[in-house]
């Protein structure tokens, strides 16, 4: 992958939507394409395919073109452009955007226009990234398929009858269908990594506290983490560097330099991981894991060995309880975080006919505004926090969390990163697990431990499962604040596979 690959041998511009973010930035900076041309190419692509994919909930044509024009004006004035200036991005509809609707995939916020930008939104704007619009998601990020969106499901570009993962299915699908080279996701239990895995894209959950949560509508505060989504590891790194860093508006944001992720991605592309010790988590295998997923995972392990890594098996016994702990902690926090949606100050208001009490209006609004999965989790969490049950549920879950963190600490005392399949299976058909929450929850089996411990983790494509021809994701987990290791290992794996396949995986995706 050459940074100048946007220009073919004859010097004519290739399809601008097929470029990586790095290539796009170079094309704009060098004047080979204007930011407006790039934005229009993507808006055209959205117009052409998003009716089928439904990645976007809101397309901000005007805002995108205005931002692109500003980049072109800067360039015309000889101003130095940032590394992602003019590159289009699809923003998960969970980050507030001043003057642009933010729904979190919920009816309860239908029509709400935030009066402020999230810190992440501000940083994107400051970096001259062109925000194309807001992407679909499971309501309040609760789900693994984007079927829980109040605005209808998103299709997986590899097979539109299948789920694109969730909750960030819209962002992942936008990348996989070339509607944007960059996207933003949020990951509470796998909502960046699992969609990345099932769409053949790259997604990173940074270390908890690495990216500001200010302006990111909370699902589970102690687990939520925004992060970059892209089609290549380097693109994810470039975006990571733009959105990460300390934010005084977020008390849980880490006040330390951002790990050198871009440098690590560039270094990793040389395909050299000699001297690295990589742990394979023993617990992430066995029953429930699709054969083709395990096959691709094993090939990834072999590739890493070939690239010079030392592979060791690692046991993390507490991981077996991660899913259970997660489904107590996340609902508990959400039951409190979502209490503010009462129909009194913003968003949906139902039943305000002048005869009902404020209490009734709140009840009716929440009844009508929240979908079944959100209600299920609010009820679960309310129960788990109730006096008399707190110790047994929330309290025990926090203890499990501590044990999981210790498992990670022990493992990272021995290895540099851990690897596993990102998800046990490839994308399942839309509707297949909609009525079976437990089956749905299992999609996040491998991703949840990193959220509970606050570690950094990445998913990147490692091939197609032979039995269904759908993408498989490789998960890499690094210690907190060692996000750069994800990029070094991820870029090496990516380079190795692209060399083996002769092209990036997404080139095998069907045309839409």
């Amino acid at each position: 992958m050459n940074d100048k690959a946007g220009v073919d041998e004859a010097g004519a511009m290739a399809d601008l939507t097929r470029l990586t973010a790095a290539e796009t930035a170079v094309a704009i900076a060098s004047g080979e394409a204007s930011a407006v041309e790039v934005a229009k190419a993507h808006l055209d692509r959205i117009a052409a395919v998003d009716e089928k994919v439904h990645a976007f909930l809101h397309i901000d044509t005007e805002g995108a073109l205005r931002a692109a024009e500003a980049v072109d004006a800067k360039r015309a004035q000889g101003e130095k452009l940032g590394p992602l200036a003019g590159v289009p991005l699809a923003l998960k509809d969970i980050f507030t955007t001043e003057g642009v609707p933010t729904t979190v995939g919920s009816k309860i916020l239908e029509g709400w226009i935030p009066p402020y930008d999230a810190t992440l939104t501000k940083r994107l704007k400051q970096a001259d990234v062109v925000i194309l619009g807001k992407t679909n998601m499971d309501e309040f990020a609760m789900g693994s398929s984007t079927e829980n969106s109040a605005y209808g499901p998103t299709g997986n570009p590899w097979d539109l009858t299948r789920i694109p993962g969730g909750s960030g299915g819209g962002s992942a699908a936008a990348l996989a269908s070339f509607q944007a080279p960059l996207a933003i996701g949020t990951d509470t239990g796998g909502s960046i990594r699992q969609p990345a895995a099932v769409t053949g894209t790259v997604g990173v959950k940074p270390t908890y506290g690495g990216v500001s949560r200010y302006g990111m509508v909370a699902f589970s505060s102690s687990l939520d983490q925004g992060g970059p989504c892209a089609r290549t590891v380097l693109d994810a790194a470039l975006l990571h560097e733009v959105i990460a860093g300390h934010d005084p508006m977020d008390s849980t944001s880490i006040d330390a330099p951002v790990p050198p992720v871009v440098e690590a991605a560039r270094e990793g592309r040389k395909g050299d991981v000699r001297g690295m010790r990589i742990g394979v988590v023993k617990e992430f295998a066995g029953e429930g894991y699709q054969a083709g997923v395990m096959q691709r995972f094993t090939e990834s392990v072999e590739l890493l060995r070939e690239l010079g890594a030392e592979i060791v098996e690692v046991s993390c016994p507490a991981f077996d309880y991660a899913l259970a702990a997660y489904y107590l902690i996340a609902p508990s926090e959400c039951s409190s975080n979502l209490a503010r949606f009462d129909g009194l100050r913003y968003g949906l208001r139902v039943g305000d006919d002048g005869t009902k009490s404020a209490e009734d209006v709140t009840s009716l609004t929440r009844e009508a505004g929240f979908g079944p999965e959100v209600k299920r989790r609010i009820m679960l969490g309310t129960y788990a926090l109730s006096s008399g049950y707190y110790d047994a549920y929330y309290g025990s879950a926090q203890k499990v969390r501590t044990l999981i963190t210790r498992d990670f600490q022990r493992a990272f005392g021995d290895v540099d990163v851990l690897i596993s399949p990102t998800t046990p299976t490839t994308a399942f058909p839309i509707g297949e697990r909609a009525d079976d929450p437990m089956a749905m929850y299992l999609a996040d089996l491998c991703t949840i431990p990193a959220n509970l411990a606050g570690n950094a983790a990445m998913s990147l494509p490692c091939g197609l499962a032979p039995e269904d021809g759908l993408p498989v994701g490789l998960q890499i987990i690094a210690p907190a604040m060692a996000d750069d290791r994800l990029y070094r290992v991820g870029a090496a794996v990516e380079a190795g596979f692209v060399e083996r396949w002769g092209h990036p995986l997404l080139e095998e995706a069907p045309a839409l």
Partner: protein
Amino acid sequence: MTVTEELVSYEDALAAYDPVMGLEVHVELGTKTKMFCGCSTRLGAEPNSQTCPTCLGLPGSLPVVNATGVESAIKIGLALNCEIAEWCRFARKNYFYPDMPKNFQTSQYDEPIAFNGYLDVALEDGETFRVHIERAHMEEDTGKSTHIGGATGRIHGAVHSLLDYNRAGIPLIEIVTKPIVGAGSRAPEVAKAYVTELRELIRALGVSEARMEMGQMRCDVNLSLRPNGSETFGTRSETKNVNSLRSVERAVRFEIQRHAALLASGGSVVQETRHFHEDTGSTTSGRIKEEAEDYRYFPEPDLVPVAPSREWVEELCSRLPELPRVRRERLKAEWDISDHEMQSVLNAGAIDPIVATIDAGAPADQARKWWMGELARRANEDGVELTALPITPVQVARVCALVVEGSLNDKLARQVIEGVLVGEGDPDQVVDKRGLAVVSDEGALGTAVDEAIAGNQAVAEKIRSGKVAAAGALVGAVMKATGGKADAARVRELILEKLGVQS
């Protein structure tokens, strides 16, 4: 809503029962900004003009702890002889109410910043009562709702409600006592003295003006009775927002009488929230707590723990100002007055004006005399605080100076004060305008004395024969002749001198 409660007399109540109190006092801190965001805390602003995404609880917003708020909390804790937590967290108290934008209050639950302290309070007779402090914790205030329509002024029955979130997020410290036992019939007095002492302490620390009438300090009174001699606590009522020192006393008194009536008639006290009414001095039932409300507390995940370093706590401790009790002891010694006199000064709210008057040059006894005498009488007549009188300590000090140098006697000084109070200007201006200087011309005074002796020969003779006390009659005659403008002491001296008697 008028509910007539059965009461028994206070004396009868105390004959049979022993009151147990628990006082919860909320203090709004005087920080410039709110507890979890940068909005101003200024009072009196246009409704909802001092708000931001965080204190409005908008989706996506996050709190950040106000360091000054934490510092104030630690100071209060230290002044209340509390232990200061080495590590503590905020917690969410979950319940739905429209004046709370997030539908949870960010508070502290089982990890308060300060705990296990005490406050010694002075009772009216100068005795000391030790009130043990359970905890002092940090939290945020709610918004303010005004319910329009309906009979009760409460949300139930209101036609609509107006919400002002300027107050939402203002830092509060909640100070909770341990059960106050052993006060007996003095329970109302102890309650009032505790809140008074706490208010003085908060003011001395400079962390809040603690003006109860402005809602900067609010008191909830928990009260239960147990039969005399019993060790087990009875069922308590919680009277909310008792908002003046006098109301604290009255609310305790009323609840003792109400509980006693219920218990004496074989009934039982309902565990409930009650509202105190300033006008009638009574309480009425609020919502009944059929079961303990479940606030589903859990540690606030949006905030990191508060872990004040021991060095910081020690530094704050070393910088604590002189606390009211210590200050009172010092002043009592400096002024050379009794416990009882000091208590009167305290009750009159006169300490600060007296100190300021002394600082402005007045002798302590003069300063105390004027503030506790004439000025206290005036304040009482006008129904205002001493400090609300339109006279400054500097002006009082000037009056004192004029008296000391003999330019004014007490009677004239009262007139000067009167002049200052009605706006005639500074004491010297009043003296000029009203022509109030004492007759200090020895010649004129001598003549007046001579005339008085001449006109009262019989009295003069008594004095000559040694009945010095009889001089008063002649002094009176001279004062009358000079229109009260003479220095009585000097007149007395002159009379005795002229009659050849040793004073």
